[in-house]
């Protein structure tokens, strides 16, 4: 199969999976859902690591470094703050 068709297939299927799961998230957890999914979108970090470490040119290294910093803030901050919020949701014993 053509590789571009392949990635589009993955893209479309993942969107369907996303719709199926997210519609089941209760409104009470919508804020943690946003911050948690936001942390997941920091996955761009992976591309950033390759750009920052490959040393093709100073320019790409600098761009890569900036991307690593941005994406890491997104990932670390996102997962941590979600954790902090979710721990507060509880029932009384």
């Amino acid at each position: 199969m053509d590789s571009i068709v392949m990635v589009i297939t993955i893209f479309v299927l993942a969107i369907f999976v996303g719709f199926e799961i997210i519609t089941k998230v209760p409104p009470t957890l919508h804020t943690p859902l946003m911050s948690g999914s936001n942390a997941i979108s920091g996955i761009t970090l992976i591309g950033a690591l390759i750009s920052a470490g490959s040393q093709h040119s100073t320019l790409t290294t600098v761009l890569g470094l900036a991307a690593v910093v941005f994406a890491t803030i997104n990932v670390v901050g996102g997962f941590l703050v979600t954790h902090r919020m979710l721990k507060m949701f509880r029932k009384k014993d």
Partner: protein
Amino acid sequence: MPVSVVNIAYLVASVLFIMGLKGLTHPRTAVRGNLLGAMGMLLAIVVTLWDQRIISFEIILIGLVVGSAIGAIFAVKIQMTAMPQMVALFNGFGGGASVFVAGAALIELIIAGVHPQTEFTIATGASGIIGAVTFWGSLVAFAKLQGVMTEKSIVLPGQQFLKVVLGIVSVGLAVWLVLNPELTNTYWILVGVASALGILLVIPIGGADMPVVIALLNSYSGLAAAATGFVLGNNVLIIAGSLVGASGVILTNIMCKAMNRSLTNVLFGIMEPGESAQTSDEVYEGKIKATSADEIAMLFDGARRVVIVPGYGMAVAQAQHAVRDLANLLESKGIEVEFAIHPVAGRMPGHMNVLLAEANVEYDKLKEMDEINPTFQQTDVAIVIGANDVVNPVAREDSNSPIAGMPILDVDKARYVVVIKRSLSPGFAGIPNPLFAKDNTLMFFNDGKKAIVELIEAIKES
């Protein structure tokens, strides 16, 4: 490490993301879900660091340390009331990272003397546009929520026209980039134009519409990651990005429905003016009953059921802990207390729930609109704190009103309504609220937190 091993690790990471999001479908499993997501991310990062293309680790290490420190400080220090602006800011960083990664990937190819394929340049253009719009849009949203700039809708003359032009120009530049990928400067011009578009898109959006915008930017940050995944031909980016994209779209849709407004209306900063809108004098004249904490305290004698309706005002006054104390006090008197949460109460989806959870209110006391509305008739006292448009009966009764058709909490059906508010100033919709003038409504003009504290004292004394 062989490519197939890396790809299998990415597959495992994607599965962990999906399982993590699935965990968020219930408060009991949510903490574990978030940890699964974080594990997926860690796995993806570790495996990527084994990539043969990475020669220098110093730069990466610097980036990871600096980013982790900034992220961790934000996450630990931030107050729960400020959560909307922080999510906005993090969204922006995600978008910004996509812009840089796609740009670096393009430059690398050109330096290596490879002519990029059309699919690659299309994806690069998309990353640049979505990423830049996300970054600047999020920064404006952050500035509005943080109070750095006015929360009001700013509409400049010719703004709609300018937005259309900027949109067309950025798409045109993307096409130019696809035709002439060697001219890498085109990419940065495209990013510049898209940045201006991002700013203009969010500037006209006013305070109470913020939940829609934050949800939408959340979706964009996911789509930006997915577009970068197309650039790099990386499945885990595509999967994670589209999951987040879908999540943001769903939330955007829920928010729009809860305000009975179309997405176009929100995005273009349009608030349809009502035709037969009454002036506030007509509605309020001589009908407002201002009251004191002692008078309200008497309402609770013999009451069996109380519903508390929080709005953005509760967040502004940081009154969530005082509200919790009030609820506990009433419960100790044998009164049933529940909270009615409107989907757009606050400045982001679920904002009120997080605040009340912070104050140790059990999550099953927080009721959604559809669930609690039929119970207002059996409610003795409804306490509205810092909410306005979401309890305005005009939405139900006047089809010409700007909020006509918006689903509201039917607090006016309760036996008594107590409204805690600083003044009679209108809410975001800019219209008077006949609820305040109803026979069974008592107005308690005060700061949200002070009002609740006084009320608690009064109940204890009575």
